[in-house]
């Protein structure tokens, strides 16, 4: 029995018995849909987390010295949380100590942020992120400017009331107007706009462009930095190796400054991009570990359904089998016919599952902040599983068919 013939016959059978076919496909279809969708979303998240999240929020080869970690995706116990709240905050002295003593070459920026109301161009906006930083911050964040410029070291040192604004703030406060040189009032004081950064886009649905940056020693510091403490101290090094070195050095410097004994744990956090990813890696690891089990269950169920459908097909088509045998079909011809038919049914299920899975991944991408990227290997695995499940499920019914006695089969109604 030629292969193409058998496949064509299977497709004809599928097409003529649409409803029954649909149910027989369902198990494999669900299994493969699930496989593709989960892999796509997890894969998408991986790419996103590594390329976007970590490097955008933390910065390339950069770490932050903080009171507590700011990306918490693992589970944090009450005890951990209470310990964090007991820690001393990072102060200006800590920052200048590290900056003075660190031997690894690095760019630094202190930073404090808060959210407040701003007024400009006769408009007012609430809940805008304001942040005071050092000039090195623009390098660390790799910001480009769509208009104007960053503030200079001199302006920063003098603590002038100048500002760099994000793209959203520019569009919202100065629609159709060039914002450079205009003034924005924050906390009753005017700040002159020096530059606008290029659009950064969104992260998990949150805008990365709704901010105002001012020099650390500008009057805005009084709003952003509460009680003379700092939120984060950014350190950027030229390479990964140097970053690891600098992290070690910084940890030692902080322990000296805080006079920690060897037995005492760090009472500060050093946040790296990798550290920010560790929580996500745990989650995706669990998802990937659970995936084979879930897919296997639906494929086993799907295989059993297909086997029953094939057993039914064999008994419904006993006479056809008799006719084929009378015309010269050997056992292996009949065996191959039903195994191929079963594999075809299952592969069609897998193909629909692949399409639905990709569709589902894109629906998730379009309707939630979750990203999605279809992994080509998962499509290969889906097709393979479809063929494999169908063949395995088809063997028993096919072997029953192949063993039918031609005369008995011909007499069947």
């Amino acid at each position, binding site marked *: *029995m030629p292969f193409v013939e058998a496949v064509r016959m299977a497709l004809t059978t599928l097409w003529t018995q649409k409803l029954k076919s649909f149910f027989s496909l369902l198990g494999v279809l669900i299994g493969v849909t699930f496989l593709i969708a989960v892999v796509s979303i997890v894969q998408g998240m991986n790419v996103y987390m590594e390329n976007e999240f970590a490097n955008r929020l933390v910065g390339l080869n950069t770490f932050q010295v903080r009171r507590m970690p700011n990306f918490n995706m693992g589970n944090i116990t009450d005890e951990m949380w209470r310990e964090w709240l007991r820690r001393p905050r990072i102060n200006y002295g800590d920052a200048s100590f590290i900056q003075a003593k660190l031997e690894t070459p690095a760019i630094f920026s202190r930073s404090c942020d808060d959210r407040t109301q701003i007024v400009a161009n006769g408009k007012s906006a609430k809940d805008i992120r304001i942040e005071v930083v050092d000039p090195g911050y623009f390098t660390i964040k790799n910001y480009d400017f769509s208009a104007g410029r960053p503030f200079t070291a001199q302006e920063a040192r003098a603590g002038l009331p100048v500002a760099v604004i994000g793209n959203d703030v520019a569009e919202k406060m100065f629609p159709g107007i060039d914002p450079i040189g205009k003034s924005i009032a924050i906390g009753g004081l005017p700040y002159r706009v020096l530059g606008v950064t290029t659009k950064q886009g969104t992260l998990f649905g949150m805008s990365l462009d709704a901010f105002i940056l001012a020099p650390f020693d500008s009057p805005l510091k009084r709003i952003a930095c509460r009680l003379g403490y700092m939120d984060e101290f950014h350190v950027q090094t030229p390479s990964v190796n140097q970053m690891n070195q600098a992290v070690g050095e910084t940890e030692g410097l902080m322990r000296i400054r805080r006079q920690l004994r060897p037995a005492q744990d760090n009472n500060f956090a050093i946040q790296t991009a990798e550290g920010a990813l560790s929580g996500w890696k745990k989650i995706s690891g669990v998802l990937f570990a659970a995936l084979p089990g879930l897919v296997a269950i639906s494929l086993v169920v799907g295989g059993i359904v297909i086997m029953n459908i094939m057993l039914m097909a064999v008994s419904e088509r006993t006479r056809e089998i008799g006719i084929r045998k009378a015309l*010269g079909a050997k056992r292996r011809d009949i065996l191959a016919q039903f195994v191929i038919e079963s594999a075809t049914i299952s592969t069609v299920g897998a193909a629909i599952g692949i399409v639905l899975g990709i569709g589902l991944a894109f629906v998730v991408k379009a309707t939630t902040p979750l990203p999605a990227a279809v992994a080509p290997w998962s499509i290969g695995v889906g097709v393979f599983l479809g063929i494999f499940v169908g063949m395995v499920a088809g063997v028993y019914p096919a072997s029953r068919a192949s063993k039918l006695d031609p*005369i008995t089969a*011909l007499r069947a109604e």
Partner: protein
Amino acid sequence: MTDVVIQIVNLTREYLMGAERVQALRGVSLEIRRNEYVAIMGPSGSGKSTMMNLLGCLDTPSTGEYWLNGQEVSRMPDDALARVRNKEIGFVFQTFNLLPRASALQNVELPLVYAGTSARERRDRSRHALERVGLGNRMDHRPNELSGGQRQRVAIARALVNEPSILLADEPTGNLDSATSADVMRVFDLLHRQGQTIVVVTHEADIAAHAERVVTLRDGRIASDARQEKVQAA
């Protein structure tokens, strides 16, 4: 002797019905030569179908020998029998036994599919076979779009397409009215004139009248074996 197509010697076939043994054939010996046209007659239950199934290699005898073209087929394993059915035998059934979802052409192609013939040759030979039975214009019809007589002619074309050494027909007109029966018998007569060896099972005398030789079975034995003047096809 190469001229002998079928030789059966002391053939028996018994069936087990629970504890009971049914002796369907009780020792039948027969020789059929090339281009013979044989009718097998006999009352219902006399063993005609049993004998046809054995001749057609659909079944194996309990004892006795069956030689087909000088080859002993009575002890052959399954797959070897499938080959013999495919290459040497053309079978026509009372109930046509066409695949309902396949076109006339696809039905006729089936034996060639199992013979491993290429798609192109399959189509050419099947067309030709359908033309021989006068269905050149019905190739793409499905069985349910054809009359009974046409269906049986498709079945005959299918039986012929592998150029079998023998054409076997078990009550080929049993499901047809007398006019269509006559049509189908004309096809058999034509094939016979073209050199085809034919064995037809029937219990109707006017069908048997087309043959040159009539073998009558009774209780699983040959009761008579006689040559006769063949009726002239109209």
